[in-house]
Every structure is written in C-alpha cells, then in structure tokens.
C-alpha cells in the first residue's frame, strides 16, 4: 500500500500545486512541493528493510486481468536505489528551484510539472507490469516536454521541447511495441515473469525484433548516438529541470531500462553489437563534443551524453561485474552532474551569462560555489578519492577484459582512455575558464556574489556525498549498492570490491594516462578553445539537429502536401462517389467470391394494389430525383409521396408501429424542408443551362453508379427476402415480452425495456442534434438575396396597399382562413390523441416516439395556422425544458431500479384500474416512455420553431443594407 501512496503522492502534490496557480505566493507552492518530495523520500527510505538482500515488495491491483494488464507495483533493491535517487535529488532540486525561479515566473505551474514528473519517474521505477511501465514512460516524455517549454515565449525552449518530445516519443512508441512483442514471447506482461524467462526470450525468433524496439526506446531516452542531439537542445529548460530531468533522472530511464531487462535480454552477440556500438560511439563523441562547447550547460549536456554512453557500454559487455559498475556509475554520475548543473545555474543567475568566452576569474566573487564546482568537476574527471574515480576504475578494468572477441572489444581500452582524457580536458576547462584567469570584463550583471545559503545547500550536500562515497565507498553506498545488484543479478552476483586502492594495476595506469593526457590536451588547446565558435570543428555544421529538422520538414510538410494534393480532395462529390462505389464493391465482392447466384424471379403472389402503390412510389422517387435541381417544391411533394408509399408498405406488411411513426415523421420532415426552401437561392432552368462535355461525362458516370447501386440493392434485398427467416433473437423477445416486460406490443417493449439503454442513447443523440441546430440558427445569417420577404407575401402586401379599405397584412392573415381555424380547433384534439398514443403504447401500437412527434405536430399546426408571430404571442413552449425533463426522467427511471437492487433500467410492470378509463398498464417502462415522449416533443419543436423563427428575425445583413441605402 505504501507503494501506491509513494506513486500517487507526487501526482496529488502536482494537482494541489495547480490549485495554487491563481495565488500570488511563490513560496507556498515551493514549500508544498518540498514537503511532498521529502515525504516521498521518507516513504522510500522506510521501505529499505523490506528490500534488503534481495527482498521484494509487491502489490497487485486488477485493471484488465483478461488482457494481462494489471497495476502491479514492485520494489526491489535496484528500484529502491533509483527511487531514493529520484526523491532525494527531487528534494534538493525543489529547494534549489525555490531560490532559482524568478518573481515573474508562474512558479506553481513549474512545481506542478516537476512533481508530476517525479510521480511518473517513480512509476517507471516501481512498475511491475511492462505495459504500465510504458505508460509511465510516456508520461515522463510529456512532462519533460512541458518542463523544457516552461518559458514558452522563448523560441529555443519551444523548439527544444518539441524535438525532445518527438525523439523520445518515437522511442516510447517503439518501446511499447517492443514490450508487446516481449509479452507475446513470454505470454505475460508481468515483469517478474519476463525476467525469469530470459532463455526463452533469447531463443525465440522474435528476440531481435523485441530487442531492437526496446533499444530504440532506451537509447532515445538516454540520448545515445545517433539520437543524442535532443539533449543539448533541451538545455533551454530552467536549470533545476536540467539538473533533475536531463542529468540525474529522466535520461537515466533509458539505462535503467537496460539494467532492468539485463537478465532477460543481455548476453547475446546482437545485444553486444547493438548496445556496444551505440554506447562506445556515444562515449567518445559526447566527450569530444563536450570539449568544444562554449555554453556551460551545453558542455554539461554533452558530458552527460558521454557518461550515459559509458554506462551503456558497460551494460553491453554482458558481464555481471560490468553491470555492477553501470549501476554504481549511474548513482555517481547523478550526484556530481546534478551538483554541477546547479552550480552552472548559480553562475548564470549571478552573472547573467553562460558563455565561457565571457566568464573568467569568478573564484574571487563566488569562492564557495567555485570550490564546490571544482570538487564536483574532479569527480566528473575521475580524480582519486572521489566517487567518479571508483566507477571509472571499474570501467577501465572491464574494458581491458575480453568479453566478445571482436574489433569493438579490442579497441575498447584505447577508446576508454581517450574518452577519459577528453573528460579530464573538459572538466578542467570548465573550472579553469570560469573560475580562474583575468577579471571578467563584459558580464551582463557586473557584480556577482554568492547566492543565499539554502540555494547552495543542495550542491554542498551532493558534493559531500561525492567525497564520502569516494573515500569510504564500502561503508557508505556499499550495502545499498549490494542489495540493488542482488535484485538485478540474483544468483549471478559477482565478487566485487569497492575499495579506493587496489594496488598498481592496469586500470590505475590507464587512469593516470587519462589524467595526464587530459591535462596536456587542455594545455595545448586552451587558446583555441577560449576563442573558437560553439561546437567541435568538422562537426559544427553537421549536427543531428539539422538532419532532424530537415527530415521533419520533409515528412510533415513536403510529403504531406504532396499526398494531400495527389490523394486528397476538398470537393464533396468525388468523396461521395468514392463512398458509393466502395459501398457497391463491398456489397458485390463478397457475394461474387462466395459464388452467389441470383434468386430466380417468381411472379406469383403479386398483389395488384400493392404493385400499384409501388408504381406511384417509384414514380415519386424518380420524379424527386429528376426535379430536385430546378423544382424544389415539386421534388419535396414527390419525396412526400415516396414517404407515404413507405408508410403504406409498413401498414401492408403488418408493422403498425412503424407506419404511425413514419406518418408523423413524414409530416414534420416535410414542414422542416418547406421552412428551409425559403432561404435557398432561386434557380431557373433558363439561366444556367450550359452543359460542357466534362459535366456530361460526369453525369453519365454518376448515372451508371446510381443504376448499379439500385440494381444491386434490388438483387440483394430480393434474395434476402426470399430466404426463410432464421430463428434468431426474435422468439426470445416474443416469449419474454409479456411475462417479463408486461407489454403486448413487443416493439415498444424492446424499445423501452429490453433495449432501453439503446433508446436512452438515441434520445440523447436527438437532444444533441436539436441543441446543435438551435446553436447554429442563433448565429444564422441568410444570403443577401433571400433576406427579402418571399414573393407571395410581397404580392399579397402589394394587393393590400392598393386598396384603401385594407391594411397591410390583411391578406396574409386571411389566407387559408377556414383551414387555419380548423387547425386551431384541432389543437386539443391532437394533444389528447398523442397522450392516448403514449399511454397505450405498451400494449397497442403507439409509444413515446410517435406520441412525441404527434404532440410536436399539434404545436406546429398552430404556427402554420396563425403564423409565427401569432403563435409566439400566444404559446410559450419551452422546448429546452421539455428536453431536459425528458432526458432526466428517462435516466432517473433507469436509476430507480438501483434503489431496489436491480441493474440499471430494470422495469417493473403492473396494471392499475383508473375510474372511467379502465385498466391501463403502469409499468415503470411507462415513465421511461414518458421521458422519451417529452424529449422527442422538445427536440422536434425546438428544431422546427427555431427554423420558423428565422423568418421574423431582423437579420444582420438587412441592417447593413439599410445603412447602405441611407448613405446613397
């Protein structure tokens, strides 16, 4: 349980920090973060007894056990050591950042991201499920992105953040794929199982695939060549971030992963070659590049890359002692590099620049910081009595050993010494150029002085750790390192010694050569380095960064543009044509492959009346297709004809519910389209009649497509209807409808009871559509040519104007006088009818949908009869309220079942006797149906009256034209 607390605590702190965003206090967020990270540190420390000597703490929470995905957290000695590193350095960084961040920065945001990052990093370390690990892995990439771009008005920060995210994101994706392959090989995503089946993994044909993919993840994260270039660009981040993420923890995640999977994946020739080449080239190139950096943080960044290369190289060797050295060096590097970054931050903070060409002689101004930085640099260079020395000795000793006989293995000692010399040179350069030499002349802040003591405290603490570990390693880090090593290597734990003095042997001689060589190298190159441009010679213009940007531009811009112009279209017609053709193909192809033979036509049993009805229907459909361009009203009438044919078909074929619904929907659809007609442009057959050849051929193609689709549907539906209907789910519904649903109208029982959840979804869709329509119409602006009153009204008004005894609007009002009076009288009748439909719906044709639309028609008729203004003056329909109540009622009825301990939407049915009316069904489904009814009324009315209301709105365009008319 402590593990869950440990992972959740930083995230909770992160959320808490976001609450502080609005406050002015900088201190509060820092204090809170300090408390959280310190608590995390204490929690981790308290777990030590459980993980000592190969012990393990494990916690399993089921997440998706069917897929083997569980929230498994486990801590062993290695994870403990890393968790200590994360929380410990986290504490120090929070303390440092408290003084580093300036007044103007939004400090709570910074601490929020930092804590969230800490939680994600702890998640990686403590994950006992490899998929969970990948989730936390992605989280660290995201928070790293957010932290690098913290100063987001700085272009370099944005670019650096994007580059880091792209590279580590690609790596994270590969990692996920690799872990999935790994899980597939092993048959489990549990880390313990994976680690225990190393031999099975290495023997599997997919081993290389998994290895390459996982290495992609690890190497990108740990900035190994050729993916190293994101790290120097990430230096645009605030210095606490560089110290924490980009030297101590996140970049270590890659090598952490290599150590974690070391028992399962390492020891093969492929492992040695892939990891080794990456590690060795990173080791040497990183050190070489670091020498020529002019930016303090740039130097430290390349040095970090080089040291990560060293760790990777150690891991590539596949020998247990090398793994011990790798784990040890991870810890050592974190301590000295974090302190150096913080020192660089102080220098930047006090002088205003990080350019080594401008810095010099600072020891006088920053004596304590300078001394601390010197000790830390010495540790970085591998000077005896410091922690860097011990792990570097172990590295040299391993480099001399032969592991896998190859050129790579043979040249390794020389490369190791060379890289050692480079690292001595750049460490020396860092100290010499910044702290010694003449007085600084052109500093942006001329009078640097020591920072507040608590800002320096983290450096002091870390440097002290360097010294203690360097002088008495086996007494200080020894036992912790041992439990970490045991947890990774298990039975293969080697004999190793952490002593400072092993006598005069090859590694010591190598160290001496590296030290002397480094000093000599710096002495020779000192003058060149003091003046040269940023970046190493030869490589200055050939950066991975440039290649990356070039690739990015090509892929995301040029290729995308090319693809879009070649394959895409913004026109609707080609797209619909494609969809129709694809639909046709999808229907025909499977039938063709399966050897489908069309059912022979049978002309028996054709009812002449039914055939006649469909003659009318076919005529209407074809007519609508023919007339829709120039005669919209005629097309609409014909469409209505086709709808009525459909409705009659439903009646004919024993579907009364469908017939009712189709009929009422037909009415509202027609009215809806009628209301829309007014806003469409005039189109005359006489004006635009020029048909080009290409248009003609396009039409011909569409015609063929339409014919084939129609013919296909004919053959297909005829074949299906001629098939005997298999006994599917229908009989189940028919049997249970009365006994369990309490209704005789099975269609309605299905809608409100058996499939009530679907219906709830459907009415929600209806509500959303109605609201969307409403929202769109609120901002509706008609085209200028349809703003005027329609022609008919103009003629009627002109008629009134000519006659003195009539006032304007009389004719409009008198129009269809008798029908409109009847319509007004029909209002209560239709409402009663709709309630009748609703109440009887459970047993007889009817139900919420049909009743709701009928009710909407009642309102609609009032609009038709009296005009929009008349109806709006007299009727206050609140469609939004109808919809809200309806949705609420349907959902609450469903939830009511919970009160009685049944699942959502379980219904209860009974008949009750009402005076005068008789027995009516009173299932709770009726309440649900009432909700459906209310929502359908609201949605339909909202759509229709919102559209009708447009005709009496004073439109914006009209106002503009009026002012124009006044001006002229």
């Amino acid at each position, binding site marked *: 349980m402590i593990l869950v607390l440990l992972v959740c605590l930083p995230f909770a702190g992160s959320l808490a920090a976001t609450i502080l965003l609005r406050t002015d206090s900088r201190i509060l967020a820092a204090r809170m973060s300090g408390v959280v990270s310190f608590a995390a540190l204490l929690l981790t420390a308290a777990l030590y007894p459980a993980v000592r000597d190969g012990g393990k703490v494990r916690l399993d929470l089921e997440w998706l056990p069917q897929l083997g995905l569980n929230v498994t957290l486990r801590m062993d000695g290695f994870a403990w050591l890393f968790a200590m590193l994360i929380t410990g350095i986290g504490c120090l960084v929070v303390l440092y950042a408290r003084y580093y961040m300036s007044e103007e920065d939004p400090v709570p945001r910074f601490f929020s991201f930092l804590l969230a990052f800490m939680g994600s990093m702890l998640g990686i370390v403590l994950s006992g499920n490899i998929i969970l690990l990948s989730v936390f892995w992605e989280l660290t990439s995201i928070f790293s992105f957010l932290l690098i771009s913290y100063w987001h008005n700085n272009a370099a920060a944005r670019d650096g953040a994007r580059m880091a995210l792209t590279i580590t994101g690609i790596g994270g994706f590969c990692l996920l794929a690799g872990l999935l392959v790994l899980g597939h090989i092993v048959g489990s995503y549990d880390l313990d199982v994976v680690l225990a089946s190393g031999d099975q993994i290495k023997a599997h044909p997919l081993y290389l695939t998994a290895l390459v993919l996982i290495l992609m993840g690890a190497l990108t994260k740990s900035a190994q060549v050729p993916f190293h270039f994101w790290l120097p660009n990430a230096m645009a981040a605030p210095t606490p971030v560089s110290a924490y993420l980009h030297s101590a923890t996140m970049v270590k995640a890659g090598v952490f992963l290599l150590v974690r999977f070391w028992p399962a994946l390492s020891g093969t020739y492929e492992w040695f070659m892939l990891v080794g080449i990456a590690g060795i080239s990173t080791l040497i190139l990183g050190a070489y590049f670091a020498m020529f950096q002019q930016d303090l943080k740039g130097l430290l960044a390349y040095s970090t890359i080089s040291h990560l290369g060293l760790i990777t190289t150690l891991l590539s060797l596949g020998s247990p002692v090398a793994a011990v050295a790798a784990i040890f060096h991870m810890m050592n590097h974190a301590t000295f590099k974090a302190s150096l970054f913080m020192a660089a931050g102080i220098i930047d903070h006090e002088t205003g620049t990080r350019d080594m060409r401008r810095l010099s002689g600072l020891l006088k101004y920053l004596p304590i910081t300078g001394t601390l930085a010197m000790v830390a640099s010495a540790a970085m260079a591998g000077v005896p009595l410091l922690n860097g020395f011990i792990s570097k000795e172990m590295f040299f000793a391993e480099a001399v050993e032969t592991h896998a006989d190859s050129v790579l293995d043979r040249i390794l000692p020389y490369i190791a010494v060379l890289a050692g010399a480079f690292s001595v040179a750049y460490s020396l350069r860092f100290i010499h150029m910044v702290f010694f030499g003449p007085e600084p002349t052109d500093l942006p802040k001329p009078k640097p002085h020591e920072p507040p003591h608590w800002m320096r405290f983290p450096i002091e603490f870390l440097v002290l750790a360097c010294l203690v570990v360097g002088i008495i390693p086996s007494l200080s880090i020894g036992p912790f390192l041992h439990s970490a090593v045991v947890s990774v290597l298990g039975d293969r734990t080697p004999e190793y010694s952490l002593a400072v003095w092993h006598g005069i042997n090859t590694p010591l001689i190598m160290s001496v050569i590296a030290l002397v060589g480094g000093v000599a190298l710096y002495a020779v190159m000192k003058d060149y380095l003091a003046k040269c441009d940023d970046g190493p010679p030869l490589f200055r213009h050939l950066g991975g960064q440039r290649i990356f940007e070039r690739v990015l531009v090509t892929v995301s811009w040029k290729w995308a543009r090319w693809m879009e112009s070649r394959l895409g279209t913004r026109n609707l017609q080609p797209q619909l044509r494609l969809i129709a053709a694809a639909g046709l193909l999808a229907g025909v192809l499977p039938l063709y492959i399966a050897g489908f033979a069309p059912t022979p036509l049978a002309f028996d049993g054709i009812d002449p009346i039914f055939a006649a009805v469909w003659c009318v*229907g076919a005529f209407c459909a074809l007519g609508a297709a023919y007339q829709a361009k120039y005669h919209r009203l005629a*097309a609409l009438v014909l469409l209505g004809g086709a*709808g009525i044919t459909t409705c009659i078909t439903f009646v*004919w*074929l*024993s579907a009364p519910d469908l017939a009712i619904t189709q009929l009422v929907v037909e009415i509202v659809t027609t009215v809806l389209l009628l209301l829309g007609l007014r806003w*469409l442009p005039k189109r005359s057959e006489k004006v635009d009649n020029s048909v080009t050849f290409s248009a003609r051929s396009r039409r011909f193609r569409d015609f063929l497509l339409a*014919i084939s689709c129609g013919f296909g549907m004919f053959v297909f539906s005829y074949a299906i209807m001629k098939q005997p209907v298999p006994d599917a789910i229908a009989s189940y519904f028919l049997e249970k409808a009365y006994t369990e649903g309490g209704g005789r109208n099975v269609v309605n029982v299905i809608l409100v009871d058996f499939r009530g959840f679907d219906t709830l979804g459907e009415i929600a869709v209806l509500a959303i*559509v109605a609201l969307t329509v409403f929202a769109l119409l609120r901002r509706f602006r008609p085209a200028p040519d349809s703003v005027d009153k329609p022609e008919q009204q103009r003629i009627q008004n002109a008629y009134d104007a000519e006659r003195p005894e009539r006032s304007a609007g009389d004719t409009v009002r008198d129009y269809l006088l008798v029908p409109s009076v009847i319509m007004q009288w029909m209002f209560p009748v239709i409402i009663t009818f709709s309630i009748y439909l609703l109440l009887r719906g459970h047993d007889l044709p009817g139900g919420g949908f049909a009743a709701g639309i009928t009710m909407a028609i009642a309102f609609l008729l009032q609009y038709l009869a009296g005009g929009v203004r008349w109806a709006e003056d007299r009727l206050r329909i609140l469609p939004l309220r109808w919809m809200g109540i309806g949705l609420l009622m349907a959902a609450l009825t469903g939830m009511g079942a919970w009160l009685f301990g049944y699942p959502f939407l379980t219904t209860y049915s009974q008949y009750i006797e009402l005076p005068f009316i008789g027995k009516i069904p009173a299932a709770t489904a009726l309440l649900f149906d009432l909700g459906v009814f209310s929502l359908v009324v609201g949605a339909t009315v909202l759509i229709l009256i919102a559209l009708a209301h447009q005709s009496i709105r004073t439109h914006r365009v009209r106002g503009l034209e009026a002012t124009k008319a006044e001006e002229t």
Partner: protein
Amino acid sequence: MELVLSIGIGIMTGSGVWLILRPRTYQVIIGLSLLSYAVNLFIFGVGGVKSNAAPLLGEGVDISTVTDPVPHALVLTAIVIGFATTALFLVVLLAARGLTGTDHVDGREQPK
C-alpha cells in the same frame, strides 16, 4: 410481394445515389431522405415479409405467426434519428448558403 418491394427499394436507392452525387445541397438532402427510406425498408425486409400477420401479442395468438419485432424496433428509432439528421443537415446547408453565398456542396461554384 417481395419482388415489388425489392424493385421499389432498388429504385429508391438508385434515385438516392444519383441525387447525393449532384452538386446542389438541396439535391443531396432529398437524396439522403430517399436513401434512408430504401435502407429502412431493406432492414425491415430482412425480418421477413408477412402481410396480414399479427403484430401484437394476445390471447390465442401463436408466437410463430407474429411478425419479427426486432427489425421494427431498429427501423422505428432509425426513422426518428433520420429526421434529426435531416434537420441538422438542412440547417448546416442553410448556414453554409448564408456564409458562402452559394448552394453548391463545396461552398463555391466549380469552375466549368
């Protein structure tokens, strides 16, 4: 019976497909409505075409002679949702016509 119905479905589909490939928004909306009739009838037809069958349960009604209620339930909601989407499309086309000044489906007249 089946023959007439399937010819009807074919004709409605053909007319609908022809219309949705036309350049004017109004043609497309009519086409979609026709297509939805055709599709509703098709789904309805899958459940078997029976005239003079009992649609409701009652005393003395043999369950095996009752019409298949599942396609009915499916089509019933499809009809209502069809109305909603027609309304949405109509409003979108009206708004587009107001904004672009044309009733072409692409929002601008195609160069001839």
